[in-house]
């Protein structure tokens, strides 16, 4: 059973890896002679103009800017919301859920119009603005839930010791929110890394493309052949940074830092 689930989730990834390492001829039929394995696909992708790592860098920049901006805004929002009592919290919470579920497709025209009139197009940092706006509702909800799980007496104790709001956040609340911050950051980063439609309409300069757009353009060269190998290689390269990120953050996500705060 466990094997089945593993196969279900890892299968496509491994198949993609295999595809990226095979010669194009070997994909269609088993080769009768010669070595079917090759790194040519990677070579092709990495030697493009601009080189592929450029797109990786673009996406990473947008992702980091989005994540940073989102957390910077979401933490105070979540704190304020958590401190509010009763109906207001409920109402704002509902509005946030509604915003989180709003279909992005309906925003394209408006976003495009905004990009045009404010001159936001073809700039990686401004691209993180709509991304942040789209991630914010979910981030606020997640962080608010995490704050609600912290025992209120912890902050009371800090208040009595004379810590002002900034110090309480810095020394008490944020360290305890570590796991929640890490998982929220990963979700936000992922959403930005994968985003296609807005990037497609806001960015037109070749050297500023983000990863999903760049990958989609790989096939554009010819009508007669679809470069499966190059696609696969690009996909593998595009997923590697995410893999590293999740592996790094996994420890802090899993560790239950709040254990022992209250009677254990």
């Amino acid at each position, binding site marked *: 059973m466990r094997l089945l689930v593993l196969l279900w989730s890892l299968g496509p990834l491994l198949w993609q890896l295999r595809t990226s390492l095979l010669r194009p001829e070997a994909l269609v039929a088993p080769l009768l002679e010669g070595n079917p394995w090759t790194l040519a696909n990677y070579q092709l992708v990495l030697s493009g103009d601009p080189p592929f790592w450029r797109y990786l860098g673009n996406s990473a920049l947008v992702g980091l800017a989005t994540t940073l901006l989102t957390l910077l805004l979401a933490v105070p929002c979540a704190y304020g919301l958590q401190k509010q009592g009763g109906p207001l919290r409920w109402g704002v919470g509902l509005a946030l859920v509604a915003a989180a579920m709003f279909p992005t497709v309906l925003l394209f025209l408006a976003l495009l119009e905004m990009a045009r009139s404010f001159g936001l197009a073809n700039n990686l940092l401004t691209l993180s603005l709509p991304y942040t706006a789209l991630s914010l509702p979910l981030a606020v909800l997640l962080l608010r839930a995490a704050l609600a799980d912290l*025992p209120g*007496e*912890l902050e*009371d*104790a*800090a*208040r*009595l*010791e*004379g*810590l*002002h709001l900034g*110090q309480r956040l810095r*020394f*008490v609340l944020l*360290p*305890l929110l570590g796991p929640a911050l890490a998982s929220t950051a990963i979700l936000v980063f992922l959403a930005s890394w994968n985003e296609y439609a807005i990037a497609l309409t806001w960015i037109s300069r070749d050297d500023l493309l983000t990863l999903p757009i760049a990958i989609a353009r790989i096939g554009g060269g010819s009508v007669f052949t679809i470069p499966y190998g190059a696609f696969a290689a690009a996909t593998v390269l595009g997923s590697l940074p995410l893999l590293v990120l999740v592996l790094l953050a996994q420890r802090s996500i899993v560790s239950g*830092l*709040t*254990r*022992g*705060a*209250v*009677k*254990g």
Partner: protein
Amino acid sequence: MSTASGAGLELRQLCREVGERRLLDRLDLHVAPGECVALLGPSGCGKSTTLRLVAGLDPASGGQVLLDGEDLSERGPGERQVAMVFQSYALYPHLSVAGNLELGLQVRGMAVRERQRRIDATLDLLQLGELRHRRPAQLSGGQRQRVALARALLRQPRIVLLDEPMSNLDAQLREDLRPELRRLLCGREQPVIYVTHDQQEAVGMADRIALLEAGRLQQVGSPRELYTNPANRFVASFLGRPAINLLSIEPGRQLGLRPEHLHLSEDGAVAARLLRREWWGHQQLLWLDSQWGTLRVLTAPETATPQEPRLSWQRQHELWFDPQSGARLLH
């Protein structure tokens, strides 16, 4: 109690309302310097509410908190020099024992050397030196409580508040810790307020007990005063275990008799029948059926019990109450 001197902590007409609910209703209380007053009462009676108002953690709806004659009402919790030990201890889980003590001093900008000196002294006082690098999760309940206490005392507060500091410990440990807690807390200059729902703990810890119910102060005085001279039926029945017997002997008056004040005798006024006997070693508790319902009687453990005993008592032990309001009737 006299409040003329102005020294110590004084609560004047302190109120707390949340929406329509009145959590605390015009509380007047004076705690002298060095005195430990226990706030006692059932859950939801307003004990913890009172502490939070004194600490400044919640805003009061009315009334004043005065310390040595100075009104604290306008000050935030960080400026009142109040230390509080929480029921959950509220230790910072991501910091070591020493880190927990240090944070408050650090944000006040105290020099590193002075911080270290104070932390070392406090850890020594509470015999926590060996645990200084542990995290709260690695401590036992009693150790956590001591760390919370250390954090409270470290800052040399002007008021010490304790919110059910022992309720997370087992009964044996609670009893063992009481003298130590008294030694550390009481007899210093600060007024101490100790919140508990356990009357044994209140008697063991406090110089005086303030008994609260439904947000109102019922009576304040020494344990002996409250026990022998209760202001009303609630006080009489809340204090003392086994609980006082309440007998509706005549219309318009209710008689309260403590179990230890009822005696078995040949010529008592009331006939009774033995239902059950609980033997406690130093005493035995008899459950007796009588014309006024079931009565509890405490006697010496070796007292023989006739099958058809009669009960008597002395007039001086009678406590009379109004059956409706529960107010004490002085005869």
